[in-house]
């Protein structure tokens, strides 16, 4: 049984490392006693283990400096020594976060985690909020800045959660390996844009058909589902990996077609419209804006909610301690004002986040209903063994096509809510990389679990997408890096001479590229160590009702006659409860 804290348990790690080291290191004099000493200290855990590790790092660093020919006495203060200071602080922080002081907290977390799916979501979102609160404090952001940062994280959480839920239907349930998500999103977004954009072209874009937005959205979803059908037809005949390549080729065909100058603007039956080519296409206005303003234009006046909320929040400052007050009229107190002012743009962003959350809930309900039904049961059976499903009379092709189309339609809708909400998009937003992001989020959450899909979306958005950017902001806020080198050699040269800061500055400057590397490494690590993700091992029964004996209580009844025993009514099968 895996708990969320297992990975930070030093004893566990030590056992693993030793096993690995045991295979490789042989026949070096003194190695065995040294290893035993190390193992002892390591397995003691806690402070001893951390001190040992830190000591090794320090000794190694000094050795390295000696071998590399540095004069330890003249090392500049910004040099390698600083590295060790940073490292020590990090390690100390890690220790505090994981060892005794954190124990009651971790125990409490574990309890809550097991409680329910809502608790899991609250735990993840709560931590995201806390971490971003810390970021905001570290950056000295006002309340408005914190709210802005949170609305951005929650926006990505919501859109990734939607996309991952749709992907989970494909991969987690039906076992269809779709890496063309970006293409289906693009179809949904562009179909919506073309259907609903005004017939009078603005300065920036091509004219649309001018249909009402709901029709545009419906059309986008249907278009994505129909393109899904076209893509699914080969799926019935191809191996999973060939199908994967067909889907990604499909998504590239879609993107390149949207990107082409030929279709930028065309006229069919007297109606002129187009894709806008590489420059992109403007979207119909986001209706959520109409809750706050009387129009879509930049000069629109606040209306409805806007006319009430904007003034309310604009001046929301609570003077807790007015200036000039004193304690008992003797000790002067510093003035303190709780500044809760929030800008209009942040308020409307939050409103959209609320709308998105409602859609996440809708996706979740739809997919849980799909999964917990005879339909989902057949999908699961197809994933497990398609021949069995066929031999029990299930027309597996029909199920696969319907599931694929449904998932693609949802991907189209998710794309509309994501890319279509921002007034403008271009084909560059639908590169295959976005597909891989969604996959990473799915794998983090655990394929097969709908709750896991939402958690995966939240973790991806918080920790991998928005997190690194804020880390950079915080670090650059506190450390003065001087000038940032623009090239890698320019950053490495000072590093070799002991100057760490330019190198760090260079890395931070490239944080978006580092994020890709991080995503890649996490993907590999997950596939190696925990391919089932956070919740993928969990049992989510595919039935429209709870599968317990009506009235009789689960299990029980007759006894085993043959002695082939499996623990009675074991709720959570760990794989060790197998035959005998």
């Amino acid at each position, binding site marked *: 049984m895996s708990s969320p804290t297992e990975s930070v348990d030093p004893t566990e790690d030590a056992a693993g490392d030793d096993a690995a080291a045991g295979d490789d290191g042989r026949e070096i004099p003194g190695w065995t006693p040294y290893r035993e000493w190390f193992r002892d200290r390591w397995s003691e855990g806690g402070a001893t283990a951390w001190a040992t590790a830190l000591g090794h790092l320090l000794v190694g660093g000094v050795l390295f400096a000696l071998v590399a020919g540095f004069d330890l006495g003249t090392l500049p203060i910004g040099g390698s020594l600083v590295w060790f200071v940073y490292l020590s602080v990090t390690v100390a922080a890690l220790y505090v976060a994981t060892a005794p002081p954190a124990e009651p907290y971790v125990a409490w977390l574990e309890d809550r985690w097991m409680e329910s799916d809502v608790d899991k979501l609250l735990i993840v979102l709560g931590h995201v909020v806390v971490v971003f609160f810390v970021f905001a404090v570290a950056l000295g952001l006002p309340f408005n800045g914190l709210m802005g940062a949170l609305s951005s994280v929650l926006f990505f959480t919501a859109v990734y959660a939607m996309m991952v839920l749709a992907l989970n239907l494909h991969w987690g349930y039906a076992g269809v390996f779709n890496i063309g998500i970006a293409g289906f999103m693009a179809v949904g977004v562009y179909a919506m844009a073309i259907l609903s954009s005004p017939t009078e072209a603005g300065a920036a874009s091509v004219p649309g058909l001018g249909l009402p937005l709901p029709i545009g959205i419906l059309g986008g979803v249907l278009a994505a589902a129909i393109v899904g059908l076209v893509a699914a037809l080969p799926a019935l005949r191809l191996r999973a990996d060939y199908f994967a390549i067909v889907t990604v080729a499909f998504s590239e065909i879609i993107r390149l077609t949207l990107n082409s100058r030929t279709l930028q603007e065309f006229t069919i039956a007297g109606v002129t419209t187009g894709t806008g080519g590489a420059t992109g296409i403007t979207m119909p206005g986001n209706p959520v804006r109409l809750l706050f303003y009387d129009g879509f234009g930049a000069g629109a006046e606040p209306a409805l909610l806007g006319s009430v909320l904007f003034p309310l929040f604009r001046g929301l400052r609570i003077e807790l301690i007015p200036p000039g007050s004193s304690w008992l009229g003797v000790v002067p107190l510093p003035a303190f004002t709780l500044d809760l002012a929030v800008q209009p743009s942040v308020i409307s962003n939050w409103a959209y986040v609320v709308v998105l959350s409602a859609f996440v809930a809708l996706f979740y309900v*739809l997919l849980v*209903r*799909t999964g917990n*039904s*005879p*339909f*989902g*049961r*057949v999908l*699961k*059976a197809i994933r*497990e*063994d398609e*021949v*069995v*499903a*066929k*031999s*029990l*009379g*299930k*027309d*597996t092709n029909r*199920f696969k096509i*319907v*599931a694929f189309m*449904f998932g693609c339609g949802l991907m189209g809708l998710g794309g509309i809510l994501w890319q279509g909400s921002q007034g403008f998009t271009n084909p560059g937003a639908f590169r295959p990389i976005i597909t891989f992001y969604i996959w990473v989020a799915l794998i983090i959450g655990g394929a097969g679990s709908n709750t896991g899909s939402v958690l995966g979306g939240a973790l991806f958005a918080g920790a991998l997408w928005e997190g690194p950017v804020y880390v950079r902001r915080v670090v650059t806020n506190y450390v003065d890096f001087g000038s940032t080198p623009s090239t890698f050699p320019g950053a490495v040269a000072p590093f070799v001479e002991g100057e760490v800061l330019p190198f760090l500055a260079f890395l931070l400057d490239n944080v978006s590229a580092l994020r890709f590397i991080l995503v890649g490494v996490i993907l590999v690590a997950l596939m190696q160590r925990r391919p089932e993700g956070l919740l993928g091992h969990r*049992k989510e*029964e*595919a*039935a*429209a*009702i709870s*599968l*317990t*004996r*009506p009235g*009789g209580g*689960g*299990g*029980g*009844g*007759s*006894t*085993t*006659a*043959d002695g*082939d025993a*499996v623990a*009675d*009514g*074991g*709720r959570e*099968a760990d*794989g060790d*409860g*197998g*035959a*005998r």
Partner: protein
Amino acid sequence: MSADDSVAADATDGDAADAEPSEATAQGARDAADHPLVVENLRKTFGGITAVDDASFSVAEGSLTGLIGPNGAGKSTTFNCITGVHEPTSGRVTFHGTDITGMATHEIAQQGLVRTFQIARELPEMTVLENMMLAPKGQVGERLTNALVPGLRDRVVEQEEELLERAWQQLEFFEIDHLAEEYAGNLSGGQRKLLEMARALMTDPEVVLLDEPLAGVNPTLEEKLLDRIHELRERGNTFLLVEHDMDVIMNNCEHVIVMHQGSVLAEGTPEQVTSDERVVEAYLGGDV
């Protein structure tokens, strides 16, 4: 199934239809009354190897018919041809007078002709109950709209409750109800065999094709399985039982078909078959 297969089958089908003598059809019609499953001149070749060579037999309603033969006699291939896993090279399989040759596996299963597998194929990461509830035919919840739309879902839930009750009864009947909530992958070999048969019966089949249901099963469980089969037969199910073990067939079946080198060598009651010299020779000559 590849497109080439379908070309070959279509071609031979056409030829067979042209050349078919009228008496074969008459034979089929007569059998259909009390023999739901009729196999005529079945032939299946893989490349140059003929696995089934002109096999013809029928299975009587409510019977427990045994299909035996030494290794490589073509029993499993015959099974696969009947259930649509392989497409026969030539010949005809009818079920209640309907030609089911070359039909897709799931269509054949929907007609009420269901099989089990020689090596039990449970769905490992689904619970025993999920395995059971997958099987029944005509589930309204297999339509996505019914599963999603609130008003329509009520019917799905209603049906699920009925199915759940049936699944429990079936599990009790096979005495594996204590494992209902276990992952199927955690079951022992024998339990999987029981689950497999219970699952097949959840489809309400008329004829069940059992592919070596007793292979790898301990004697106690074997007894139990055979008891169940007899009991179900009394309730009106028809069974075609492929077995390697001569004794099992002889002690339990009233009608026995012996296959050898791809064709039917002998057919009749156990007594008739055991006294047939060719059968004895095939078994002693080949490996028993």
